[in-house]
């Protein structure tokens, strides 16, 4: 990590203060994959005083997508009339019958897009094909996906479909806490999810589970400050949801983005890798848009698939195990030849450990 000139000093001060406040063993979970990467790049785990452990949670939309959903996308992609659109990180995630990248190598029309803006453009440009957008993402991305659905409707495109696979963060945190296995003492909450949803959806963490949470930015100093704010709450015996990332996160989130998301989607139970089915943690198209739902239009049954043998992704996503605990880590499972999604995604915990390895957690 290249720290800016004046930063190491500020960081040292923050780390000193953090060390001063740590009283007993403490486990803080960062929920977001972008945090995981920042924490590793900046070497923040190694700066933490003894007793303070940072653990990674289920925070990457690619990693939490279960194998059965990948299989559905691969099956669709293999149909001759279909163009399948996906964000890049999903290409190499292994399904039980190969990945999207393999399907493409075998002739399927799979295309990587950077934005839902492109999805609508492709559907318009290929009127004789059925264009399916395999949509993954958390609340940060879902408003843009909602735009694509509404825009396809506005332009009268009859060949645009959505394979909706988005997930919502607060229900996953609730499921983790209700399972009661992670032993987390506080949450470093995701900054960009919170730009959209604001502070209120996390209040249950403090009210029902008595734990603090801080909505945190992604600069090394942001993260150190977020940790410090958590420790101050602990010290003062408080449990509240606070915002460190003030420059981007408003109390109420982004009402325009939330409004569009709610107009197009409704919450539904959804499966997460490692966490199973979680109530109201996914999004399905509302009735007015349901003819664009690829699952219905193409009659795609869901088949439950077990994780690859030996892969500990499920436990890693719950913060129960660390990548080095996996017998395949670095031996059989590497970013070049990944076995589980935590090694495929650039924000996966296994990939972060592998790339910036040697830092003890």
């Amino acid at each position: 990590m290249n720290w800016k000139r004046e930063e190491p000093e500020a960081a040292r001060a923050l780390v000193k203060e953090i060390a001063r406040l740590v009283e007993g063993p403490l486990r803080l979970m960062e929920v977001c994959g972008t945090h995981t990467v920042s924490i590793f790049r900046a070497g923040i785990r190694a700066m933490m005083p003894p007793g303070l452990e940072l653990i990674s949670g289920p925070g990457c939309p690619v990693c939490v997508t279960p194998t059965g959903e990948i299989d559905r996308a691969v099956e669709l992609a293999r149909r001759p009339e279909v163009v399948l659109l996906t964000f890049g990180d999903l290409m190499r995630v292994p399904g039980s019958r190969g990945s999207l990248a393999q399907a493409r190598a075998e002739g399927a029309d799979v295309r990587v897009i950077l934005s839902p803006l492109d999805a609508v453009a492709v559907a318009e440009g290929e009127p004789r094909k059925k264009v399916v957008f395999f949509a993954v993402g958390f609340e940060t991305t879902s408003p843009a996906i909602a735009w694509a659905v509404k825009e396809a409707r506005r332009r009268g495109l009859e060949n645009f479909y959505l394979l909706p696979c988005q997930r919502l963060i607060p229900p996953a945190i609730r499921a983790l806490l209700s399972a009661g296995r992670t032993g987390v003492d506080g949450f470093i909450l995701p900054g960009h999810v919170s730009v959209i949803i604001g502070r209120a959806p996390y209040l249950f963490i403090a009210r029902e589970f008595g734990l603090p949470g801080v909505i945190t930015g992604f600069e090394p100093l942001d993260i150190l400050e977020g940790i410090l704010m958590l420790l101050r709450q602990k010290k003062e015996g408080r449990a509240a949801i606070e915002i460190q990332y003030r420059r981007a996160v408003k109390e109420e989130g982004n009402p325009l983005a939330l409004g569009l998301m709610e107009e197009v989607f409704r919450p539904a139970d959804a499966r997460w890798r490692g966490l199973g089915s979680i109530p109201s943690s996914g999004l399905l198209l509302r009735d007015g848009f349901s003819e664009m739902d690829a699952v219905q239009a193409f009659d795609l049954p869901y088949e439950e698939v077990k994780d690859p043998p030996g892969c500990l992704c499920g436990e890693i996503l719950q913060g129960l195990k660390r990548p080095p605990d996996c017998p395949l880590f670095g031996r059989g499972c590497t970013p070049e030849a990944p076995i589980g999604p935590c090694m495929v995604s650039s924000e996966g915990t296994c990939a972060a450990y592998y790339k910036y390895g040697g830092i003890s957690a």
Partner: protein
Amino acid sequence: MCLGIPCKVVSKGGDFAEVDFGGVKRQVSLLFCPEAEVGDYVLVHVGFAIQRLEEEDALQTLRLLQELGEQYLELEEGGA
């Protein structure tokens, strides 16, 4: 995947704006951020501005996020 990259708005027309991301010009939607004006910094995620930022703050976060952004784009292109 929830990366947001601070970009400066260089021109604006309707729901869309042209932004400067480390010298590269990109079209982004202002649907969720209609108040952004030319010269403002906005947080951009998958082609959409999701929040307007104060300039000073944007400059502060720009470097790390650009680094991450490049890595992310490389990976996306690598998959393409």
